[in-house]
């Protein structure tokens, strides 16, 4: 028996404008509670919202990046519900005419390229933040109330949690590339809800859709989807059906927990917001935004393959982050050897970024440093291993490679007489290894080279040392 999983996603991303959606309060993250508030975002009587042009522009940018149709005539609607995170009793959102209509993006799965279609992207305001205390109270901070959001709704086009993860990665990279959102899940600037169910491919029986909320990391989202996928299949196997309900992911328990049953769908009584006039988006404005769009990740990747003769894989890794791609290109400008630069960036640089969990722009390494370092290795002034040590030193201290090499006396010894002196001493002290080598144990040679490196404190040119050991053994032993 086969089962097909069906996944759709709803993603909220906070737009990184300077001010809120409808008022001029700052859109800075955090701040002391209730200090970014004014009569508009507090919903005080008589206050009138005015739409932030930048927020609309950012949403259109996202719409263009995801190939959506931009609706040039749209409006804001009121979504009514009562909850304390909402000051007015309604959220200003968009109902039947979203700013951006249907669109799509592509993800790379094992079988090739897969298209994920989008239902819509609309703009809306964020709500206040509730903190539930141990004493059974709830504390409310309205700094976030009125922060501009885009809600991106996909069609149910993903069929595995892995596909959903790839889509989320693509979405995050894209929003970051076009600089409309910080996309930091830990700060809540990117939030994701999942709709998931399972179809029995033989009988056509479907489980009811579960909505999973409160996912605050991609890893959590994937685990929650995997958990739900299994739960739905198990339910079908038992000849039963799942409830149409909302569940939340419990990271600690590693399971989803029912929040509420969706007996009757919530009635939000959408109505046009009369405080805001009809919105008209001039065609020229959309074209202007379209022309000012930065290069998107997949275009950049194609260009890297063509321009720098990199593999698809390497180009993919280097362009996954805009900052890293820029760092790579800036380094290549200073040192015209794309393959070599790519090897350094993809190897030791990326490893360091991963270990420290930072982005390249947050480190002390500059393209100039890296290009100098690679030049030192390329010209054999220092050997590869020393190069790695120098790189670590740059990350730690921010000093430039030439200075580090000079200060630490790391210049490679390529002077034959100097290396010969060391090699002769090592051979003198390790007669057994010479015998071992002669009787066919190749590892003994490695040991001898190692000794030379050790005595020279890593500065000897290893190729030279290797050659010299062989020469001297032949001559003398």
């Amino acid at each position: 028996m086969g089962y097909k999983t069906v996944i759709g996603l709803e993603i909220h991303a906070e737009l990184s404008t300077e001010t809120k959606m409808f008022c001029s309060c700052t859109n800075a993250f955090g701040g002391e509670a209730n200090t970014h508030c004014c009569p508009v975002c507090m919903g005080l009587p008589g206050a009138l919202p005015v739409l932030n042009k930048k927020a609309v522009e950012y949403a259109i940018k996202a719409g263009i990046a995801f190939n959506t149709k931009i609706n040039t005539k749209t409006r804001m609607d009121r979504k009514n519900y009562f909850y304390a995170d909402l000051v007015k009793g309604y959220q200003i959102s968009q109902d039947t005419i979203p700013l951006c209509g249907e669109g799509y993006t592509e993800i790379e799965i094992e079988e090739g390229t897969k298209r994920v279609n989008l239902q819509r992207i609309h703009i809306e305001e964020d709500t206040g933040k509730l903190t539930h205390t141990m004493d059974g109270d709830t504390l409310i901070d309205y700094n976030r109330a009125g922060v501009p959001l885009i809600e991106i709704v996909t069609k149910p086009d993903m069929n595995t949690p892995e596909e959903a993860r790839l889509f989320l990665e693509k979405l995050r990279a894209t929003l970051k590339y076009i600089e409309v959102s910080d996309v930091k899940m830990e700060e809540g600037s990117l939030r994701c809800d999942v709709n998931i169910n399972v179809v029995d491919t033989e009988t056509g029986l479907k489980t009811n859709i579960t909505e999973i909320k409160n996912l605050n990391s991609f890893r959590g989202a994937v685990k929650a989807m995997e958990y739900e996928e299994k739960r739905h299949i198990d339910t079908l196997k038992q000849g039963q059906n799942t409830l149409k309900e909302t569940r939340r992911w419990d990271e600690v328990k590693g399971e989803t927990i029912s929040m509420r049953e969706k007996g009757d769908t919530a009635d939000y009584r959408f109505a046009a917001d009369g405080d805001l006039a009809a919105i008209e988006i001039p065609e020229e404005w959309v074209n202007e935004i379209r022309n000012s769009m930065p290069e998107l990740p997949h275009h950049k990747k194609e260009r890297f393959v063509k321009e720098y003769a990199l593999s698809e894989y390497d180009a993919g890794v280097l362009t996954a982050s805009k900052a890293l791609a820029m760092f790579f290109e800036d380094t290549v400008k200073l040192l015209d050897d794309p393959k070599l630069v790519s090897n350094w960036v993809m190897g030791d640089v990326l490893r360091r970024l991963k270990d420290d969990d930072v982005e390249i722009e947050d480190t002390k390494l500059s393209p100039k440093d890296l290009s100098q370092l690679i030049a030192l290795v390329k010209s054999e002034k220092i050997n590869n291993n020393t190069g790695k040590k120098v790189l670590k030193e740059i990350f730690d201290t921010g000093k430039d490679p030439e200075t580090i090499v000079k200060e630490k006396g790391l210049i490679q010894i390529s002077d034959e007489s100097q290396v010969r002196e060391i090699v002769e001493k090592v051979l003198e002290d390790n007669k057994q290894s010479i015998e071992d080598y002669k009787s066919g144990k190749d590892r003994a040679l490695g040991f001898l080279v190692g000794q030379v490196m050790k005595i020279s404190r890593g500065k000897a040119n290893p190729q030279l040392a290797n050659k010299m050991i062989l020469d001297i053994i032949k001559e003398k032993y």
Partner: protein
Amino acid sequence: MVTKEQIQQIASLCKLKYTEGEIDEFAKNFSQVLGYMEKLKEVDADNVEPLYFISDHVQRFREDVVGESLQREDVVKNTTEEQFGYFKILRIVE
């Protein structure tokens, strides 16, 4: 016809409570108003653009420039309970 159940549903969405008598009265009035609105359906509006706003003004945009916010004392001034600058309410989990 608007039923009593529908009135009750709307009232509960608005978090309002009414007596049986009031609900009967609302059901009757709502039915009358909606019945009157039904008349509009007799007009042929197939080729008429829907009207959402009475005014024909188009939304003017605001430039993205930070202005002054309220002082926190003023933000929380009218609340019954405040703690550490937060609004404090009884815990209600959605």
